[in-house]
């Protein structure tokens, strides 16, 4: 069980800029397993899970794309009510703040990526509560 490295890419919030970023991803052969877009006025952030995040980050930087690596955790879930609650309850009780989250369905079934203020403590808290987290190799 370990943290997952996520790509965070700055995108101008205007027509064509997402196409520009995704064209670069295509040309660099970077496959996204999961992503979400958060937006504010004038700009957005594309958060994505890719195969080799460190390598992908360097490749994108060379193309003058503004990108950072961020730690997230991936929690597998079953497809039924109450699953997210189990996780959120653990975080709440352990005083862990969730900054954002997004869902994904991979080879091992559904999972949710969480960005929290302290991923290591979050993993420990989930473990103590009997909950699993995924490794990069599981995605």
């Amino acid at each position, binding site marked *: 069980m370990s943290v997952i490295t996520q790509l965070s890419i700055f995108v101008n919030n205007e027509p064509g*800029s997402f196409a520009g970023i995704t064209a670069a991803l295509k040309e660099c052969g970077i496959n996204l397993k999961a992503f979400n877009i958060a937006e504010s*006025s*004038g*700009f957005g952030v594309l958060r994505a899970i890719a195969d080799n995040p460190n390598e992908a980050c360097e490749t994108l930087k060379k193309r003058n794309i503004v990108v950072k690596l961020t730690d997230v955790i991936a929690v597998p879930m079953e497809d039924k009510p109450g699953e997210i609650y189990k996780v959120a309850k653990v975080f709440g009780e352990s005083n862990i703040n969730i900054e954002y989250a997004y869902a994904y369905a991979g080879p091992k079934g559904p999972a949710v990526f969480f960005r929290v203020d302290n991923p290591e403590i979050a993993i420990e808290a989930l473990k103590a509560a009997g909950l699993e987290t995924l490794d990069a190799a599981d995605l």
Partner: protein
Amino acid sequence: MPKDEIKKMQYASLKKLVENLYQNNQFYHDRMKAQGVLPSDINCLADIQKLPFMYKQDLRDFYPTKLFTVPNTDVVRYHVSSGTTGKPTLVGYTQNDIGYWTDALARSLTSIGIGKDDVVQVSYGYGLFTGGLGLHYGVEAVGATVLPSGTGGTERQLELMQDLDVTAIACTPSYLIHMANVAQKMGIDFRRDTKLKKAILGAEPWTEGMRQRIEDMTGVKAYDVYGTSEMGGPMFTECEERKGIHISSDIMYVEILDPETGEVLEPGQKGEMVVTLLRKEAFPLIRYKIKDLTCIMEDECECGRTSPRIERISGRSDDMLIIRGINVFPSQVEHVLMQVPQVGDQYMIIVDRVNDLDTMVVQVEIKPEAFSDKIEEMVALKKRLEYEMKKYLNIAVAVELKESGSLPRFEGKAKRVIDKRVY
């Protein structure tokens, strides 16, 4: 030269100039008549205030050569300024006009220590624009080597800069920033890989904050150069002290007037600059309202030169934007932005009118390392910039954060203001 003698010399030049124009220049003859002033009314330097003003519009109205005092056969060169706001303006030069222009720049270059050991890359536009050829002649006059690279072809310019041991560059501030960015991508470090020590920057408004940025990026010492196309081109620079731009008194006489009342202001008081080119031959530039705002400094400079200095141009009244009735200079926006470390070097100002209300949006590139995955941190940066703008400019400005590299780059004069308002 002592100040009294300078004034005597200026008076002698003025007297001769006015007499010649009254006799030989129909335009200025008519202007003086309309004002009710004769050459005999000019009996001391202060009498210059009796003379009528000249305006940019005069240069347009009498385009191309109707203002000329000399026959076309005596004209050795033309330069033409871009007509962004109407007709272009044409400047003609006699051999003597080229001569004192070159003298002015040679003195300026000497004052910043450029001489025969230097190699100066002139990356101002050559051609109709005055920057390239003006600096070119000045550099040659001081015996330095000129590399007339002009604008564009930045990668090649950087290679030549290294190969030819270039020690100084003359270009617009925005072009030097562009060069520094390209250099970084090519793996060139100005400090390590070039001999560049000095930069003569101008032809567009820039601030002290921008100077600091440029010096941090490149390790060069940057000097401000002043001159406009109507005057003949870039002429005067700061000296090593960098406490104002030295104006050669035998070439140009400067008055600073209160923009509202027209009253002559004391040294140190900021107002509208009015210039008289004392030795201009091809056509006159007398009491020309150049629309630049500055103040004059007459105290002796630490460099020992007695010529008066003008303060860095804080704005051109033509560049002034009126946003909801408030005067805003693009240089003020730049000043605010350059104080914030997360801000990159490129910005744009977009003015529009929405529902009969002026709006101003400042798009600004942020440095890649300032990017955060946390939206709230980015919003906080945006809000901070908006707050600083509001505090400094007194109007609400919307700030848009942009990805580094996404705003336009300029190889010539930067055009950072887009005014979409239609009246």
